[in-house]
C-alpha cells in the first residue's frame, strides 16, 4: 500500500526551509562560539601550567623507559623471571599493607560514626532547627572540601609522625563525605512513620530511632562500604607525608630509584585495591540487593 507524500507548495516550503536553515545556523554558531571560547581557555591554561611540548617530546622516552626500568631487576633480568627476587621485601610490605588497611578501616568506621551522629541535624526533614542545620552543613562541607592529605600534613605536625595522623585525616574527610550522603538518604525517607511515632508523644530522639533509622540503615551501610573502598586508595598515599602505611615505602623507593621495588609495591597496591573492590562490591550485592549496589 503506497501512501502519497503530500508536498507543500513551493512558496510555503521555501519559508519553512528558510526558518529551518536559520535555526540550524544559529545553533551551529553557538556551538562554534562555545568551542572557540573553550579553546582560548585551554590555551591560557596551557600557559598557566607551563606546558612545554618540547620537554614532553624529549622526555617521553623516559616515561616509556621508566616502566622498562621498574620492570627490570638489578641483575638485568625481567622481574617476572624471578618473583622471589622481585618481591624480596614481601614480609615488610605485607605488614605495611596491613597497616594501610587498618588505617582505612579505623578511619572509615570513626568517620561513619561521626557522620551518623551529625547527619540527622543536617537533613532538612529531621533537623531540629535551621541554625543547627546551617552550622552542621558548613562543618561537613569544610571537612569534605579540604583534601584528606592536607589534614594529614597538619596532623603529622600536631600528633607526630605515624599512622595516627593518617587515621584522623581519613576520619575527618569521611565524616564530611558520608555526612552529606547520609543526610541525603534521610531526606528521601518516608516521613509518615515519624508522624505516627510523634503522635504517641515520643521525643525527637525516639522519632529518629524508631521511624527514620529502620528506613535508612541499609543505605548507610552501603555507602560506608563504598567509602571504605575509596579510603583504601587514599590510605595508600598517606605515607607520602609521613602518616603511615605502604605509601612510605613507595615514596622511598621512587625517590631513591629502587626500580624493581617500585613495581613490586605498585603491583601489591593494585592487587589489594582490586580485591577490595570486588569483595566490597560482592558484600554490598549480598547485603543490600542489586539496586543499592549502584
Amino acid at each position: 500500500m503506497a501512501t502519497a507524500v503530500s508536498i507543500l507548495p513551493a512558496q510555503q516550503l521555501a519559508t519553512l526551509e528558510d526558518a529551518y536553515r536559520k535555526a540550524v545556523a544559529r545553533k551551529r554558531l553557538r556551538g562554534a562560539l562555545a568551542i572557540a571560547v573553550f579553546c582560548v581557555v585551554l590555551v591560557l591554561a596551557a600557559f598557566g601550567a607551563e606546558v612545554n611540548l618540547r620537554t614532553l617530546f624529549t622526555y617521553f622516552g623516559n616515561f616509556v623507559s621508566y616502566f622498562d626500568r621498574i620492570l627490570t631487576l638489578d641483575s638485568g633480568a625481567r622481574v617476572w623471571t624471578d618473583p622471589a627476587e622481585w618481591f624480596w621485601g614481601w614480609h615488610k610490605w605485607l605488614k605495611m599493607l596491613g597497616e594501610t588497611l587498618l588505617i582505612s578501616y579505623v578511619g572509615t568506621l570513626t568517620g561513619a560514626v561521626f557522620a551518623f551522629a551529625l547527619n540527622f541535624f543536617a537533613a532538612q526533614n529531621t533537623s531540629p532547627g535551621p541554625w543547627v542545620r546551617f552550622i552542621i552543613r558548613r562543618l561537613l562541607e569544610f571537612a569534605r572540601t579540604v583534601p584528606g592529605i592536607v589534614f594529614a600534613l597538619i596532623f603529622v605536625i600536631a600528633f607526630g609522625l605515624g599512622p595516627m595522623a593518617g587515621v584522623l585525616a581519613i576520619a575527618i574527610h569521611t565524616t564530611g563525605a558520608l555526612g552529606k550522603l547520609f543526610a541525603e538518604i534521610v531526606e528521601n525517607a518516608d516521613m509518615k512513620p515519624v508522624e505516627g511515632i510523634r503522635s504517641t508523644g515520643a521525643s525527637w530522639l525516639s522519632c529518629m530511632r524508631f521511624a527514620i533509622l529502620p528506613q535508612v540503615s541499609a543505605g548507610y551501610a552501603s555507602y560506608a562500604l563504598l567509602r571504605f573502598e575509596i579510603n583504601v586508595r587514599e590510605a595508600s598515599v598517606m605515607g607520602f607525608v609521613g602518616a603511615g602505611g605502604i605509601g612510605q615505602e613507595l615514596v622511598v623507593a621512587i625517590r631513591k630509584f629502587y626500580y624493581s621495588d617500585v613495581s613490586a609495591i605498585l603491583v601489591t597496591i593494585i592487587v589489594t585495591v582490586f580485591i577490595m573492590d570486588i569483595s566490597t562490591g560482592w558484600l554490598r550485592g549480598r547485603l543490600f540487593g542489586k539496586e543499592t549496589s549502584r
Partner: protein
Amino acid sequence: MSQMPRPDIAELRGKYPGVFERPASARLALPAMVAAALAIFVYGLVDLDFSPTKLITGMSQLGWITMMMIPPNPGSSFPLYMQALGETLSIALLGTTLAALFALPVSLLAARNIIPSNLIRFPVRRFLDSIRGVDTLIWALVWINVVGLGPFAGVLAIMVSDFGAFGKLFSEAIEAADRKQVEGIRASGGNALHEIRFGLLPQVLPVIAGQVLYFIESNTRSATIIGIVGAGGIGLQLAEQIRVLEWQKVSFLILMILIAVAAIDFISSKLRFAIIGQRAVV
C-alpha cells in the same frame, strides 16, 4: 456474620517453625557482625599506636595551631598565591580535557555494543582498571621523574589517572545508549563509522560532557594536592607553608582553595544543567 475458626497456634507452630521463631543464625548474625567489627577496630587502635595521652597532647597542639591560624593573612605573598591558584585551575582543566580526548576512542573499544568480542574488551577493561587502581599522587611522582618538577607533571598525572576513570564511565554511557538509532543508520546504508558518528555520539555526548564537567570540579581538589609532592600549583605553596609553620598563611591558602572549589562547583553545575537539562548525571 459467622466467626472464623480459630487457628490452632500449636499446630501451626509445629508446621512452620521459621515463621514463629527466627532461626538462631539469623538472630545472632547482626550482633556477631557488630562484635567482629568492634574487635577489628580495637585491634586497629592498638596496632596503630593510639594512646589517650598522645591523643590529648595532639589535640592541644591542634587547638594551639588553630589559634595561630586566626586571622588568615597572606603576608606579602598574595600575588604569588593567586598565580599558584591559577596554575592549579589550569592543571585541572587541561588534565581533564586531555584525559577525555584520549579516553573517548579507547572507551569505544571497551563498550560491549561496539566491540562484541571479549578478546579485545577484556584486556582493555583490565588495563583501565589498573590505571584507576593507582592514585593520582603516585602518577604525579612518576611524571616528576620523567618531565621534572613543575605543573606540567601535574597535568600529565591528572590526565593519566582520569584516563582510566573516563574510559570506564564513557564505555558505560555508550553501553547504555539506545540501539534503535544505530539500527536506523545502518538501515539507511551507513557504515560502521557512520553508525558511531550519527547513531551513538549524539546520544552519549551530553552524558559525557556532564561527566567531564563533574571531573573538572573534582580535579580542582586533586590538583590542589598533587602540589604536595612537587607537581606545581597551590598545593606546593600549602605544603611549604605547613612545613615552615606559617599558620596564618596556611589558613589563608586553605580559604583560597575552599572559595575556588565553591566557585568552580557553582559554574560547572550551571553549565551541566545547561547541557543536560534539569536532571544531573552522577
